[in-house]
């Protein structure tokens, strides 16, 4: 099946080469980081996680959102999604590839990564995150590949695959819950120490992931002969709308608790994000942009005519992805460390090598995604022909 990835148009190869160049630049920067240490990043003793861990968090969400096509199809027998479950599953696989790489590039001592397995430590949430992410990736590879292979042969996939599919559904929820627990159980980090964290993560995942999937479906429709379908995109848009409404609602709940209680520890990280604290406010323009994007996406999604129009829907999805990315991929991590344990503020902004490494990992994920989508779409085209 993988041979389908070796035959493609000029545009396909051009895109892959473009990604390979970005991967090469990222690898070069990572080698520089490997030899010099993480001091080449913008991280510090006060903001000791940054862009890398933010991306881990964001893409765990994208990975988990694959369940938003799998669940309606397999649990509710919503037949239309049968056509695009494979796209959701392969998006999950490539997202997890990115997540694992983002953890890897964040490590101070990457050559010791196997210590996590050599000295298994069940009281560490990172240990469980490693397990749930790897198992989720395996589940999606096995399920996606076998279902696709069966489709190619024109037969029904084997029964044991169905068992894995049923396991994969709660598993998707588990990966983002466990990832939220990385943050939500740390004493003294006010912005993270909230029991709604896992719920917020899931809601933002279930809007951002399917929004990305809609954009991917529209691209697939444009560049291949496979049409993911009007109804499919329309249903996905409905899911995105509800999830984004819940996501924004959950965030407003956080604002209420912080600003009605007036407890400084609860207010300060949010003030830092939107206004700045002790003279450090470099994230404020970003956060306000995220707020505007969030409102704009909701307007476009809630109004039926703009939601049903593919052009305005694409805009809604793009600004929604930007809004959730700023919130989760950038603000969440930095605000967790702000103010620091001494109630002072240290500014964080990623350095150029740090950004290039991040882009390199993203390119790797999209490379995997392109190859997997190429295989899937080729087989869908053959089946249709």
């Amino acid at each position, binding site marked *: 099946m993988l041979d389908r990835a070796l035959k493609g148009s000029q545009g396909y190869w051009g895109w892959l080469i473009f990604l390979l160049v970005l991967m090469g630049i990222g690898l070069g920067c990572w080698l520089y980081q490997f030899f*010099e*240490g*993480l*001091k080449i990043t913008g*991280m*510090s*003793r*006060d903001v*000791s*996680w940054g862009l890398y861990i933010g991306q881990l968090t964001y893409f765990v969400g994208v990975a988990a959102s694959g369940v938003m096509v799998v669940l309606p199809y397999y649990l509710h027998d919503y037949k239309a999604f049968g056509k695009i479950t494979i796209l959701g599953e392969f998006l999950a696989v490539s997202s997890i590839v990115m997540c694992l790489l983002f*953890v890897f590039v*964040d*490590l*101070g*001592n*990457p050559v*010791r*990564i196997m*210590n*996590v397995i*050599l*000295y298994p*430590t069940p*009281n*560490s*949430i*990172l*240990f469980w995150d*490693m397990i749930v992410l790897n198992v989720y990736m395996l589940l999606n590879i096995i399920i996606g590949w076998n279902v696709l292979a069966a489709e190619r042969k024109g037969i029904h996939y084997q029964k044991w695959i169905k068992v894995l599919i049923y396991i994969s559904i709660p598993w998707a929820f588990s990966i983002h819950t466990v990832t939220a627990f*990385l*943050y939500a159980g*740390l*004493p*003294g*980090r006010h912005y993270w120490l909230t029991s709604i964290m896992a719920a917020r993560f899931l809601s933002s995942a279930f809007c951002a992931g399917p929004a990305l999937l809609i954009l991917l479906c529209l691209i697939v429709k444009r560049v291949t002969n496979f049409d993911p379908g009007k109804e499919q995109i329309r249903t996905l848009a409905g899911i995105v709308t509800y999830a984004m409404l819940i996501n924004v609602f959950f965030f407003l709940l956080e604002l209420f608790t912080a600003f009605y209680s007036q407890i*400084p520890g609860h207010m300060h990280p949010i003030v830092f994000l939107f206004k700045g604290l002790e003279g450090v406010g470099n994230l404020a323009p970003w956060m306000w942009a995220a707020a505007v994007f969030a409102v704009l996406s909701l307007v476009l999604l809630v109004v039926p005519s703009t939601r049903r129009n593919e052009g305005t829907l694409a805009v809604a999805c793009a600004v929604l992805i930007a809004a959730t990315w700023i919130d989760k991929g950038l603000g969440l991590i930095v605000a*967790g*460390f702000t103010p*620091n*344990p*001494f*109630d*002072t503020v*240290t500014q964080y902004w990623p350095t150029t090598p740090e950004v290039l490494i991040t882009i390199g990992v993203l390119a790797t994920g999209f490379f995997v995604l392109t190859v997997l989508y190429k295989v899937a779409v080729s087989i869908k085209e053959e089946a249709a022909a």
Partner: protein
Amino acid sequence: MMGVDRREFLKITGYAALFGLGGKAAMDIFAPGELEASMQGPPLTEGKRWAMVIDMGKCLEQQAKGKDGCKACTEACHRVHNVPDWGNPKHAIKWIWQDKYEHAFPDQPNPFMTESVRHQPVILLCNHCFNPPCVRVCPTKATFKRESDGIVMMDMHRCIGCRFCMAACPYGSRSFNWGNPRKAPKDLNPDYPTNRDYPERSKGVVEKCNFCAELIAKGELPACVQECDKIGAHALTFGDLNDPESNVRTLLQEHYTIRRKPELGTEPNIFYII
């Protein structure tokens, strides 16, 4: 000679003689470490829950004597443990250091506090928490609480550098080697490494105060305490919290003390007499 009565001792030495062992060798096999401990005054190697009481009054008195205050404990500790100076607060490695009162105790804000109190220097170090969140989150057991004496230890050869412990520590007591310590600015670290007997770190690992586990094992007080005593300030008292008769327990009986962020349930083992 704990746990070994005269009769048992004779039995052990008898058997030892039978196998051609005797004296110290026999002790090392049947009761390792006990001979050394029994030969010293206060058995520094036998604490069950090490703790420190910091007398802020004495510390401030000493601070007032110098023009730039007093950095004796920090300098001694960082020299003994090969802690480099990066010259950049973002990459600073800190085992024991000073910060203003308002930063050390941010949960005690008071707008009417005088400037001098607000800015009073407070000695900070790892709290060696009884319930350490850093240990809870470490994915490799590279940081662990030593069950025998409660010291929160760091295995720098196992640490993968994920920095989860730094996110978990509510006291900012953990430092990361953002670069190779040997590449720290030479003009700031002309004599680095300052102590050939203590290992240096590689880049990419977390480190912190270890309560001088290596000195305690030899029956010596932590370097900061030794230094503070040497200059005659005696502001730092190190002892066993588990022993009701110990020096630290006596101080806690006689003085009102506070700990940093006690509401988080970490049970710090560093106490401040204010």
